[in-house]
């Protein structure tokens, strides 16, 4: 198993041992592979996810049988919803004990069936090289996703005398489409040529397909204004006033998105969806779009096309391939009136939130922070208000925005940021958390300490579950229940106890000053910002 990982070129894995995975760990002793010992298995999957998103290849996480494997589940489901390539390895009880409910046995392949791309329960050591190669191919190609390999302890102990790692594998039922159908591409080109108010909506698939440049070239060539789903943030640089030959980017759409981006999408007569699965948070009124606009949907997964929205021109294929083909065929058009119109929507909008002296106003602070950070910095955000503030108010240039968009898993940010930092050590990586989500992966501060990488954590502490509380205001007549985080610790003292530098900011001025120190400091740094619980999300 270790040699399989080495053959895949894996240099870092995230895990937590236990009896049933001990043979693997023993073999790891002699391997150059770096093992990051997490504090809870769920975070091993999140770290592998952050790592995979920056490395552009499958992240690997390891856990033991039973509770170890069960703890991985949320991390695997999180990766599945966002199509992140993961290979999860779990120990299992001995073959002859399978199905007898022995100590630390769980049917983990069964439990994960609906949120793994594929899974294996390996019953012979001789199958391991093929299984590992298949798992890495499945995880990384087509629509990426997590693959689980469950290996009984006695299979791990079995010797595999002639180890050869296959370069290629033949999986009968797996042939992802790369090249878009030329007829469909031609239809799309014609539809685009006839549209007066086209919009391109990019999702996470653009980044997964490594199609950032291809998208930007297509947007520049075609002149089509671009909006993004939350997972598509980072695919376009957010330029305030683009030149005539530069792409127009309007930011995030959806329930918590930019009103002008939603407005432009609502007024479009043609929408090109690109690697977006049109979830309910992003596309709040699919029927209206379907009614008013010609819909072109490009996705590598045919099952996403037509699932949530009627599609006129489906194009199945690798997004980069399709966008490059479209760029070659689309003739530049003068879309100036439409571009001017949507840019006017954008420039007319007034940014929400202004600096405060009695608390940190997170929205204006995030805008200030984006001016302080490197152009290619990586921002990891935890679900809740922090995620939405960061998605909207942090200005992306050449950076990445890593978050759990599909499942909305609290506690994702810190472990994912650590994984991202290990994969891209030269880039600035900042995790943005609320006090609720932060406490869900609090234990990983020890892992941050142990790795001793300059990871930066921004903690917005309003002592509330802000987004749920706001929802209670809107939907349940302000009857707040279970959203007040009573008993929160002194986060600065706690982080310091973990050996991390930590500071408290009580207003925007302090926050900006401390953020400067944070970004300049050579080690990990937690900046705790006191936030007013009544700060709105939008």
């Amino acid at each position, binding site marked *: 198993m270790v040699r399989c990982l080495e053959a895949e070129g894996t240099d870092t894995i995230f895990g937590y041992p236990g009896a049933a995975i001990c043979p693997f760990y023993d073999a790891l002793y002699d391997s150059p592979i770096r093992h990051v010992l997490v504090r809870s298995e769920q975070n091993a999957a999140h770290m592998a996810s952050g790592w995979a998103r920056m490395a552009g290849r499958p992240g690997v996480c390891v856990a033991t049988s039973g509770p170890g494997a069960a703890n991985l589940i949320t991390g695997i489901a999180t990766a599945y919803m966002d199509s992140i390539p993961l290979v999860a390895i779990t120990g299992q009880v001995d073959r002859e004990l399978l199905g007898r409910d022995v100590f630390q046995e769980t049917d983990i392949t069964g439990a994960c*069936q*609906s949120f793994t791309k*594929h899974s294996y329960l390996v019953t012979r050591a001789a199958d391991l090289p093929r299984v590992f190669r298949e798992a890495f191919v*499945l995880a990384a190609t087509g629509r990426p996703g997590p693959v689980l390999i469950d290996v009984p302890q006695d299979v791990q102990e079995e010797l595999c005398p002639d180890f050869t790692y296959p370069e290629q594998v033949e*999986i009968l*039922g797996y042939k992802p489409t790369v090249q878009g159908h030329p007829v469909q591409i031609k239809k799309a080109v014609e539809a685009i040529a006839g549209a007066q108010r086209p919009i391109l909506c990019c999702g996470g698939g653009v980044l997964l397909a490594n199609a950032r440049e291809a998208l930007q070239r297509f947007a520049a060539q075609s002149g089509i204004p671009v909006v993004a789903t939350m997972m598509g943030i980072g695919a376009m640089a957010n330029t305030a006033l683009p030149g005539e030959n530069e792409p127009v980017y309007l930011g995030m759409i959806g329930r918590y998105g930019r009103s002008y981006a939603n407005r432009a999408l609502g007024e479009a007569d043609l929408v090109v969806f690109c690697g977006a699965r049109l979830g309910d948070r992003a596309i709040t009124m699919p029927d209206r779009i379907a009614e008013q606009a010609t819909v072109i949907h490009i996705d590598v997964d045919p*099952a996403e096309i037509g*699932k949530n929205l009627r599609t006129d021109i489906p194009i199945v294929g690798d997004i980069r391939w399709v966008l490059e083909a479209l760029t070659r065929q689309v003739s530049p058009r003068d879309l100036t009136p439409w571009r001017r119109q949507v840019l006017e929507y954008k420039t007319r909008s007034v940014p929400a939130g202004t600096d405060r002296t009695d608390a940190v106003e997170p929205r204006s602070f995030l805008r200030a922070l984006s001016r302080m950070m490197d152009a290619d910095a990586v921002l990891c955000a935890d679900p809740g208000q922090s995620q939405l503030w960061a998605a909207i108010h942090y200005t992306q240039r050449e950076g990445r925005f890593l978050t759990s968009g599909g499942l909305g898993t609290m506690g994702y940010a810190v472990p994912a940021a650590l994984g991202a930092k290990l994969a891209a050590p030269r880039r600035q990586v900042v995790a943005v958390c609320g006090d609720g989500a932060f406490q869900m992966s609090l234990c990983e501060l020890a892992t941050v300490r142990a790795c001793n990488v300059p990871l930066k954590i921004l903690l917005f502490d309003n002592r509330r579950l802000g987004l749920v509380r706001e929802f209670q205001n809107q939907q349940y007549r302000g009857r707040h229940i279970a959203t007040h985080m009573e008993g929160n610790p002194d986060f600065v003292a706690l982080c310091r106890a973990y050996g991390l530098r930590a500071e408290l900011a009580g207003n925007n001025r302090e926050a900006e000053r401390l953020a400067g120190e944070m970004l300049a400091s050579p080690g990990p740094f937690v900046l705790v910002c006191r936030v007013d619980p009544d700060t709105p999300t939008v």
Partner: protein
Amino acid sequence: MKYTLSVLVENRPGVLARVVSLFARRGYNIDALTVGASETPGIARMTLSGEGDNYILEQMEKQLNKIVPVIKVRSLGPEAMRSELMLLKLNCDPPSFGQIHQIATLMDAQVVQVTRSSVTLRFAGSPEQCDTLFELTRPFGVKEVARSGVLAVD
């Protein structure tokens, strides 16, 4: 709308569970499912039938194709050959045996077992014919029915 899907799968442990859990979690209706050998060794054929509109049918095909051990999915039209096997165990005393035998002969069902108080018929035919035989014999008192689910070839 009735659908019949013919699905070729790699004959490996867990493949049936994957298909069934897909239908369960996505809420697709399914009336019958059969699994057995296909013309190729190592590859099994599943036949699924039930109700679903065009949207659901398209989703089913696409989602089934995403299951890695699923090799090919085909939706069968009304012209496809469909057949089902039914075993029908009826309450039967000697006076009514003649009537049951008559129905069996008429429908081309075989009498495969006779006891003092029961008779068992074996019948192969379309699902509708199975329904007809069932209705015809119901007045005698049905003790037990087992139906295989639809098998189909294009």
